[in-house]
């Protein structure tokens, strides 16, 4: 991790994931943060986090954003984990009544929008497309 040839963001993400698996996660994250500051890559932190989440999915660990109209029950969450094929699911939950019903799952470059709001919007869109055509 010493200065010299710049590491690619993906390599850095792979390093963090490796360390997370071997139990040295905290230390690795601190080192990665220091490296990003030193190599003036602070702006790419979001991308690094997404990279880490993406690599984690390969080993079955999913970090997902769940948006639903009401709080999800544990059984519902385990159903979602099953759907994603996740061994472990870390969920960041948001309750948003405007989605009306259903759930929206966003995890590491994947998305499943099964909310009622999305369905209505899509229906509206296809209808307006038909009108303009």
């Amino acid at each position: 991790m010493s200065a010299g040839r710049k590491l690619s963001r993906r390599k850095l993400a792979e390093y963090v994931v490796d360390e997370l698996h071997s139990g040295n996660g905290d230390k690795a994250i601190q080192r990665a943060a220091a490296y990003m500051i030193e190599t003036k890559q602070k702006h790419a932190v979001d991308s690094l986090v997404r990279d880490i989440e993406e690599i984690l999915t390969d080993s079955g660990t999913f970090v997902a954003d769940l948006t639903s109209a009401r709080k999800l029950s544990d059984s519902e969450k385990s159903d979602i984990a099953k759907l994603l094929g996740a061994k472990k699911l870390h969920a960041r939950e948001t309750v948003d009544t405007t989605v009306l019903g259903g759930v929206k799952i966003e995890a590491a470059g994947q998305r499943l929008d099964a909310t009622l709001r999305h369905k209505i919007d899509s229906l509206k869109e296809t209808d307006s497309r038909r009108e303009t055509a």
Partner: protein
Amino acid sequence: MTNITVTELTKELKGAIAKLEAAEGLETVGVVTRVGDGIAWVHGLKSAGYSEVLEIETESGIVEAFALNLMEDEIGAVLLGSDETVRAGHKVKLKGEVLSVPVGEELLGRVVDPLGRPLDGGPAIKTKHTGPVEREAIGVMGRKSVHEPMMTGIVAIDAMFPIGRGQRELIIGDRQTGKTAILVDTMINQARQKSGVINVYVAIGQKLSKIAQLVDRLKHEGVMDQTIVVATSPSDPASMVYLAPYAATAMGEYFRDNGDHALMMYDDLSKHAVAYRQMSLLLRRPPGREAYPGDVFYLHSRLLERSAKLSDDLGGGSLTALPVIETQAGDISAYIPTNVISITDGQIFMETDLFYQGIRPAISAGLSVSRVGGNAQTKAVKSVSSHLKLGLSQFRELASFVQFGSDLDDATKAQIERGQRLTELLKQHQYQPMGIWEQVASIHAVNEGTFDDVPVAKIKEAQATLLTRLWTEHKEAMRTLNKGDKPSDETLKTIIKVAKETAKDMKD
């Protein structure tokens, strides 16, 4: 919707919902990390393909882009529209297809943008087919050698640098030397001669006033019905200017693949290269000579390779290309001009000096060449114009000696006299392309020396009189000649006879 019954409505609604359910599932999404200058950088979407269309979900609807830079960490995508509504953090989806444009006969007579959307204020264009913007060129076995003529109606070109269907002939010259005029005349000629060739004119970053003028002229001449104009202006995003020739070629290929003949006019590829340079530099690709990227040759070679004469098995259609390149101070050895010269099957070089001497079209006989058109030249024109190019080149060389004022022998003097008349004959007014019989009669009369005694200033008048007389007195013979076959001795004798009479009248 008024005539739909409740049952039908319910059925339709159920159908729409079922369709949505079916389409539902895990989809791959990326995120816009940076955006600016018409370029969006996207994180994620590892499965994106080169030139694949991406859909960016903005607050004001979907903005499309196409992926050009596929890198380890991110994708560089060029937006097909304004970048104002796109922000970092917006989600990006793959559309699952490369960029396609509407193609078909419905586009004839229309002015469209590179995505096939109307710019002429007319109704929306609904075509049955679409064609991919980037498409591999036809292979060796699918091609046939160029053998049918593509008459431009310009005597100097049809006689000295004939163009065949399926050929790529470059029009090159400085600004204001009549490059576009040649294209317009060629389009008009297709309508006048009823050649059935479809014109596809691509304005690449041209001033809108110029395009409007051109479209007006085409309408006025009755050419628009067999023409598609694909227009981009300097205010359009570089991505649109970049796409214009590829999209237009897709539109032309439809006719080629259906056994028809189409003529592509790219006006001009210098501006296209500049637009691509802008995109490449913004995508952080390494600059090369004149700051153009390394693949600027491939940019034009893959475009022009799509022009072809198809084999009979594939329907025998053709796509001819007349790309235009604008040079700076007559420098044809600059980067882009040499590239395109080496790609094309010949070039027509327009000279500023000739233009200001009043020799219009200002075609340079020495620097222009057509490498494959000889086999495609109309037999009638070929039979009378075999020594034209050599004679004219020799004359231009001799003419510079005459300026020294030295004494000349009779043979040289005669050659100069003939050359002056030939030069005069090859002058042609804009929007007045000539038919085959007119070209043959004019060239034959001068070549045989019948106009040698007519003063140079009166050559054009003599030519006009000759053509009028031939048409009024020998209409049938001229109609036969216009079919393009080698003229009979009798026809040639008639031309000489009438030319001699005309020359006699002119002398007095």
